[in-house]
């Protein structure tokens, strides 16, 4: 009899603890979600919008268009390769954004987008998926002026246009 009472008390206290944790997590989730920059609405998920974005083809940019904008200082190149390849050589002025890092950089790029810059993501090789992934991740975050510079690194290098080495 004693042990049943003890057991039921244990179960009861476990449920109380469970509710405390749920309530704390809910409170913190709501507070953090409302103060953070990449806030999402608590209810309502537009699956139609997501599907549309997933299917949307991201436009490409050719070498001559890219170079033209480069001379006018209207383009920001985004190197979607890993940091080591970036250090070994990249288009002058490019910033290194691996697909995973895109969400972290989206906010600062948005500011640049408002200033009228076009973004061109590139990696190495015609089949390389990284440039498309970074471009897709940025588009998903509301940056509309992203274009994929297919096989960008090789094409740019072969054309003899300016490249840099190092972290910057």
């Amino acid at each position: 009899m004693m042990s049943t009472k003890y057991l039921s008390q244990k179960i009861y206290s476990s449920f109380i603890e469970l509710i405390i944790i749920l309530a704390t997590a809910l409170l913190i989730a709501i507070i953090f979600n409302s103060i953070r920059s990449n806030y999402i609405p608590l209810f309502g998920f537009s699956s139609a919008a997501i599907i549309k974005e997933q299917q949307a083809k991201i436009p490409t940019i050719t070498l001559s268009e890219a170079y033209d904008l480069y001379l006018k200082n209207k383009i920001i190149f985004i190197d979607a390769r890993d940091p080591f390849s970036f250090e070994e050589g990249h288009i002058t002025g490019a910033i290194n954004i691996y697909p995973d890092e895109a969400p972290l950089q989206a906010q600062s790029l948005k500011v640049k987008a408002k200033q009228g810059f076009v973004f061109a993501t590139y990696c190495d090789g015609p089949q390389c998926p990284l440039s498309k992934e970074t471009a897709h991740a940025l588009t998903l975050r509301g940056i509309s002026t992203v274009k994929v510079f297919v096989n960008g690194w090789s094409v740019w290098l072969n054309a003899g246009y300016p490249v840099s080495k190092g972290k910057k």
Partner: protein
Amino acid sequence: MKLLNFPRPFLPVFALICRLALAIIFFYAGIEKAINPIDFAVAIYNYRLLPDYAINFVAVFLPYLEIIIAISFIIGINVRGAALLSTLLFLTFAIALTINLARGLDISCGCFGATSGNINWFYLVRDFFLFCISLIVLFYDRGWRYFFD
């Protein structure tokens, strides 16, 4: 402060190790998900199990729940409640994984943030393993007090 009941008896020490391991796993998983609620929402959507209006809510709530569970495990407060929740969570994940593996959907797991790999049977085994660890914590954990005088 004196160390008590260490390294024997075996079960409470084993439960302590399990608890701390779970804490690390939950903390990492929670942070990875919390960084990117949009991507995590898409990962949840891809599971095709929840109605649209619930997706964002889960995407916002679940990461912080995991972090709070991790903190409870580390500090050692509300451990039984946290272990109960952890057990239920792993059970839910197992059901969601099984349904989609059976459906044959090739989707991102979303286990540790949106960029974790696509679902496969190994993930289900891993989930079951973590479920068992949660049960051990639920039944055998004695808290920090048990080890320190």
